[in-house]
């Protein structure tokens, strides 16, 4: 909650709208006591995460919801962010639309400078109580405590108390709001919001005390700072006339040419000349003197001239590691049997606004097979819990045919069925929402198209997993056949006839003629002991190299084993340990080298890029 007003580009916009929102609070999402509680937590938590992310701080968040009486709750949110300057506080919390981001060209959670102030206003309107804020900047000796409200008539802060206090935190901000609210858990609740936030912010430690005195802690499982977006100048193509006019009016440049080159991204002097000659506008004209007609011509010209795609530094995806670790952290107790490699699309542009899509999923395990898949939606790193039906993400899922990827779906449209939790994140500089309360991404064609493309890639990943597990199943069946069923036939037929049990090795090598690789695992806490069995059911002596790859956790010691001169009908066992296994251990993946794949069951040929791709991932994300 500390980002507003600190940016060098800040340009506060003063509009007296408090009264309007007091009477129309549903517009901002405060339409019921239940929803209001959710909005207050959401606005504060989003602001905290934005502030931590921008300042390279690993977020430590504390949330408490305490019951005051029948329908009033006291909500406290505390972060370890950078804190807010003492002079900024009244405006940040006590004045609607006091924001720096309204014209910032960059992806962030909050944008409009309304959210947290609206929460303060809602608390004041429903309980008559002001809000309490404590904030401290790193390096300061004392924190400052404010008690404040909003003068609704003229949209100005009403500070009742401002005093220095001793606070044992190095830096951070705490806000306490008392508001009319209703508490519940389950769907569309603050708890679900925290869980889904934790799922993509594994570098956050979130402690939550609920009204019944229970404590819930989402642990930090990644010590990395989130990827942040950089603020860039507006991308010219697709801007509205009004927007260009606004920028021209504010510009300090002397000529239109300088204005185009200096105030927009991706316009070089050469491109500026081209645009202006196309538009028939004098390159020396002062930007402030441009007529609407001229701006309109410039706007059209920008579409015709070849402007390079927008800069991508302004985008900030969760990234592969955050999605993987977060999904494991939050959904690990469902013991999914598969965590996908997340899909990240290349950025696209919608109305001059760069955006992109990333998709991750978990599949199988204890997830219900006969129910609709769960779609977890995010826009600019914020979980979307409401208005699923109106959202581009839901629409894209429903308009994708999932049947080829192994999910059940009647007629190839609608929400498919299967043990899948699908995480979809749409992020960009200005994501279009269906309403002011930003609860659903508007289904504009360009965005729908990109989401669908990402979903198809994820679908192919799911299909590959299915094929792999089918292969494993076949290998297991064969192993079961020679390891369990044939001995049973021999034993049972011998006992019925009262004769000695025949030697079945010749029959086994006739049926199998392969090397079998299987394993027994036992789990103790987050450690897994693996015994890998290698059976030689071929008729030859075999030597080859085996590589063990645990899909979760870390293998202790070597992961490569040389198998030398394993004789026909013989077996050797290899023991190793895997540590840091959270949740279910789905079984080791084995690779081999130095033997014809047709002779091996239970392992895959070692990929040619083995270990190369692994290193790339490490470098790219750290």
């Amino acid at each position, binding site marked *: 909650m500390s980002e507003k007003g600190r940016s060098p580009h800040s340009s506060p916009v003063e509009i007296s709208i408090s009264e309007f929102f007091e009477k129309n609070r549903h517009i901002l999402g405060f339409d019921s006591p239940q929803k209001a509680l959710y909005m207050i937590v959401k606005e504060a938590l989003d602001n905290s995460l934005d502030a931590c992310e921008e300042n390279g701080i690993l977020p430590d968040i504390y949330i408490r919801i305490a019951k005051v009486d029948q329908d009033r709750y006291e909500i406290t949110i505390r972060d370890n962010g950078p804190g807010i300057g003492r002079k900024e506080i009244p405006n940040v919390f006590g004045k609607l639309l006091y924001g720096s981001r309204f014209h910032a060209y960059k992806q962030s959670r909050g944008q409009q400078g309304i959210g947290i102030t609206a929460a303060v206003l809602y608390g004041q309107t429903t309980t008559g109580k002001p809000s309490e804020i404590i904030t401290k900047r790193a390096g300061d000796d004392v924190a400052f405590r404010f008690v404040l409200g909003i003068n609704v008539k003229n949209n100005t802060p009403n500070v009742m108390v401002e005093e220095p206090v001793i606070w044992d935190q190095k830096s951070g901000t705490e806000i306490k709001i008392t508001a009319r609210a209703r508490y519940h858990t389950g769907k569309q609740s603050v708890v679900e919001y925290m869980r889904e936030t934790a799922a993509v912010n594994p570098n956050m430690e979130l402690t939550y005390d609920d009204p019944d005195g229970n404590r819930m802690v989402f642990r930090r499982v990644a010590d990395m700072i989130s990827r942040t977006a950089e603020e860039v100048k507006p991308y010219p193509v697709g801007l509205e006339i009004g927007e260009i006019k606004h920028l021209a009016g504010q510009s300090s440049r002397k000529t239109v040419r300088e204005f185009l080159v200096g105030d927009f991204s991706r316009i070089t002097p050469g491109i500026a000349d081209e645009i202006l000659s196309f538009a028939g506008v004098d390159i020396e004209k002062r930007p402030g003197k441009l007529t609407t007609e001229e701006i309109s011509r410039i706007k059209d010209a920008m579409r015709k001239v070849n402007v390079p795609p927008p800069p991508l530094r302004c985008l900030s995806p969760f990234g592969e590691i955050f999605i993987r670790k977060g999904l494991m952290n939050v959904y690990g107790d469902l013991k999914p049997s598969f965590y996908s490699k997340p899909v990240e699309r290349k950025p696209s542009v919608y109305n001059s606004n760069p955006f992109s899509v990333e998709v991750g999923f978990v599949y199988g395990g204890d997830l219900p097979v006969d129910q609709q898949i769960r779609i977890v939606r995010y826009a600019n790193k914020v979980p979307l819990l409401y208005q699923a039906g109106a959202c581009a993400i839901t629409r894209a899922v429903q308009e994708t045919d999932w049947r080829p990827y192994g999910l059940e779906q009647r007629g190839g449209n609608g929400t498919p069925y299967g043990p899948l939790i699908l995480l979809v994140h749409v992020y960009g500089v200005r994501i279009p929402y269906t309403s002011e309360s930003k609860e659903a991404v508007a289904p504009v064609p360009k965005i729908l198209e990109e989401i669908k493309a990402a979903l198809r890639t994820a679908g192919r990943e799911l299909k590959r997993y299915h094929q792999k597990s089918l292969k494993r199943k076949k290998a297991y069946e064969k192993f079961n056949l020679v390891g369990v*069923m*044939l001995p049973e*036939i*021999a034993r049972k*037929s011998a006992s019925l*006839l009262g004769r000695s049990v025949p030697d*079945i090795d010749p*029959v086994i090598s006739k049926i199998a003629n392969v090397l079998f690789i299987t394993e027994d695992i036992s789990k103790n806490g987050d450690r897994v002991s693996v015994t890998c069995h290698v059976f030689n059911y071929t008729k030859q002596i075999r030597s080859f190299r085996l590589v063990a790859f645990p899909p979760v956790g870390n293998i202790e010691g070597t992961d490569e084993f040389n198998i030398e001169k394993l004789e026909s009908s013989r077996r050797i066992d290899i023991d190793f340990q895997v540590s840091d296994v959270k949740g279910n251990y789905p079984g080791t993946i084995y690779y081999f080298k130095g033997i014809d794949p047709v002779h091996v069951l239970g392992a895959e040929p070692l990929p040619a890029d083995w270990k190369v791709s692994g290193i790339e991932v490490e470098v790219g994300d750290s």
Partner: protein
Amino acid sequence: MVILQKDVEMKLRSIVEKIYGDLMAGEVPELSLPSRTKNNIVLDEENLVWRYGSQMVSRKASSTDGAGYLIKTIYVIEFILDMMRSGKSSTLREMYYISEGWNLGKFHSQSESNLTAEDLEVVSNLLREDFKLRPEENGASVIGNLTIEERNRKGIFKRINCKDDVGDAGYQIPYTVEEDKLRIVSGDADFVLAIETGGMFDRLVENGFDEELNAILVHLKGQPARSTRRLLKRLNTELNLPVIVFTDGDPWSFRIFASVAYGAIKTAHISQYLAVPTAEFVGITATDILTYDLPTDRLSEHDVDALNSELKDPRFNTDFWKSEIEIMLKTGKKAEQQALAKYGLDFVTTEYLPEKLSQLGVIRR
């Protein structure tokens, strides 16, 4: 047909010997038996019934399914041998439940265990009665002027007239109707009418159809059990009575007729004991549905598949059946026996059956 217990034992052991022998010889164990599908039934010219042809299928331990089958077969044989030694018998359903304790030999459904028992009949040329395995009583029944003697639990033959000595439900057909259990003494009737549904059976009984047209009524209770078909066969051969089949008008009922007349695909190894090749189908035909303008239901996808499969079934390869099946496919409609009630409760006994039976030449009007 008296078979000594030691012959049964020897035949069953020889199946296991084959498996054991394969293993000893270093071969993959394998059992082969006639393919029990509609693609492998041929007309037995002598008995005019459909029997298994020469196609064989192999159950081989080179796949988990094949190996599982062999394990289950050995367990079933062991179970049967144990019963024979201790003088017990069990129902097929009991065997299914007992298999719970058989580990890898456990059956996953009762139809699987029934099929295994039938396979053993086919391979050994014996009947499941020889294995001490019997089905559940299925409640199929007879009403009409038929006198039989049934051996009771005390071993005494009791005489029963299936018209005078029974209630409205009729005489219940036991699970075995061979000579050592049931003797046919006499019957005064012109024909036997085998009826698919209980509702229609009750209607004909209430309307006194058996006495009026001098018929023996047999309730098939859906797809008839072996003993019901065996009784029809005995009434046909021993009392020389024509057998007429009266069912719903849908693809599944056509199959009921086929199993009575030509033998069921599953039991084609004993068709000559069960099938009545001269049996005739009185209705409901697809033509009846049109002629009598009966209330109908639409054919489901499943029904259409069944009809198309019947077109490829050699048992239905006659002009009559081809034309009926094609009419049904074309109209897309099926009807129940009880749809005849559209014209009143008596319509079936006063109009429909007399008309259709005289067309078949069974009665004269």
